[in-house]
């Protein structure tokens, strides 16, 4: 009988500026995950995937997986490894775990992700960001911190499609308001359009609330098969129906679109994941897309087919991403308000999708049965898409 991968449970620690070590954050998130499924014990886990990109630079720790395994009390026998795909690490861990449990290599995989980015002196994380782009060719131009790159992206979207600053601000407002009551989000406050429009400048046209913050945090989820999941939980099963990960360029070199607001790689990742999941854009009831910047979400809703190319600004500005809209997006607050500890973000998205499809989300989308999660990683160098559903692909 075919084995179908499901996400069984998940949890995250409080995200933000944390007075804690990287391995402390992973322990807190593991506890939150097991609290979500009291019938499952650490001894039941046979695989561990750790997603972290800055462990090496900000925590002086490579070969991170054995350290995390020991601290969270799991003893892997099928897989124990780390993945480094920056912002897509957590989603990549889920994709790999799906393959491992469906192939029978593993049965119950803990996918964890986390970063400790606030070092004793703040300059260090900003400086270390020179390592997250092509060091010799983009870092040398000061592209380590992404606001300039996304300023160029926003300007080209405005030039080619006529989107407005107010439409960008609408994304920030929606996502902050989703996170206002999220106890583990970094930013827990409501935001008005007026506040967003009058915020301090970062790199024009981007202002404070257009940019996600720097975040310490971790998240953990459990990936297993539907048959195994039934032994531990009576909740509705949430399947990982289809996935894709597309890389066509390295940061600035050989960008695949006609301009920086034309994300061909995003579209390709979406189309491939839709095909694998046997769904179409119209089936997506809820989405968690990679809102590292407000402009990102505007372009993503276009490339995933929630609206026509070029109409993302209008889509986001007319409340289509809010509850009651066409496709509610980033219903837990997204990167903008939850924060973005790179390796943990895809797991945070998976956990929110688990809750949405089980009908227990804080901002529940009525009738949510199919959902999409997405990460952009690096300065637009790679796109990762997962489609979750209440039924397996038949």
């Amino acid at each position, binding site marked *: 009988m075919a084995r179908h991968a499901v996400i069984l449970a998940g949890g995250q620690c409080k995200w933000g500026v944390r007075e804690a070590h990287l391995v402390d954050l992973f322990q807190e998130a593991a506890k939150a995950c097991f609290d979500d499924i009291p019938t499952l014990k650490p001894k039941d886990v046979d695989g561990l995937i750790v997603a972290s990109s800055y462990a090496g630079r900000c925590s002086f720790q490579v070969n991170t997986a054995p350290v995390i395994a020991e601290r969270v009390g799991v003893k892997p026998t099928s897989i124990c490894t780390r993945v480094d795909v920056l912002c897509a690490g957590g989603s990549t861990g889920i994709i790999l775990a799906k393959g491992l449990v469906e192939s029978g290599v593993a049965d119950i995989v803990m996918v964890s992700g986390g970063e400790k980015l606030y070092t004793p002196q703040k300059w260090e994380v*900003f400086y270390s960001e020179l390592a997250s782009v092509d*060091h010799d060719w983009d870092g040398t*131009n000061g592209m380590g911190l992404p606001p300039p790159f996304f*300023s*160029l992206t926003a300007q080209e979207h405005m*030039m080619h499609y006529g989107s407005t600053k107010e439409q960008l601000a609408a994304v920030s407002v929606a996502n902050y308001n989703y996170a206002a009551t999220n106890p583990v989000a970094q930013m827990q406050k409501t935001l008005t359009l007026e506040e967003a429009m009058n915020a301090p400048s970062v*790199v024009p046209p981007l202002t404070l609330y257009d940019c996600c913050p720097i975040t310490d945090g971790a998240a953990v989820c459990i990936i297993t098969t539907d048959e195994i999941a039934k032994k531990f939980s009576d909740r509705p099963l949430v399947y990982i129906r289809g996935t894709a990960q597309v890389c066509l360029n390295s940061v*600035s*070199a050989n960008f695949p679109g006609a301009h920086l607001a034309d994300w061909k790689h995003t579209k390709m990742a979406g189309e491939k994941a839709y095909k694998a999941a046997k769904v179409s854009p119209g089936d997506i009831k809820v989405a968690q897309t990679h809102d590292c910047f407000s402009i990102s979400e505007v372009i993503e809703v276009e490339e995933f087919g929630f609206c026509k190319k070029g109409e993302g600004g209008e889509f986001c500005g007319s409340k289509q991403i809010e509850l009651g809209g066409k496709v509610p997006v980033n219903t837990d607050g997204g990167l903008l308000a939850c924060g973005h500890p790179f390796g943990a973000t895809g797991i945070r998205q998976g956990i929110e999708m688990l809750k949405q499809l089980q009908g227990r989300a804080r901002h529940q989308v009525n009738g949510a049965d199919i959902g999409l999660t997405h990460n952009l990683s690096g300065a637009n160098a790679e796109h990762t898409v997962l489609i979750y559903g209440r039924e397996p692909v038949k």
Partner: protein
Amino acid sequence: MAVLGIPILENLYPSTMDMWPLEAKEFNRNWQFYENLKQGKLTTTKCKDCGLVSWPPRVICPECYSENLEYTDLPNKGKIIVFSEEVRGVPLGFESPLIHAVIDLGVAPARRVLSRIVNCPAGVLKRGDEVQLAVFPVPALPIDKGKLGTVMSERVFFAFEPVKK
């Protein structure tokens, strides 16, 4: 000079904290690119077998996997397609204003090169402005040569600057 909090690093060079490329021949097979820059030339690699010009330069042709590559000149002048200006919060290693631009050098694969604009105050640049190559020195690379001691290997890097009208 001591490193605060890490006295054992006194007079040592941590290459893992170096923001500039390890350009020296001992550490980089594309060292010729930087030598060409020192002559004021912006170059990249061209495949002598299939003809593909790549950016940035490399040691294997990504199209036909030939190792038979040569350096070819890229134009030193181009036009700004779009640019951004960061005035406050500029990261360590860069000065305000930190200006980035997508530049059209007029030939493939350099129709949309993402680079930096230097020698230019904030608020004066316009889309369509002409810019030219600007080569500048960056700190020399200290290479441990054993008994010969530490040799300082000179380095340069490049950006673009407005063409004076």
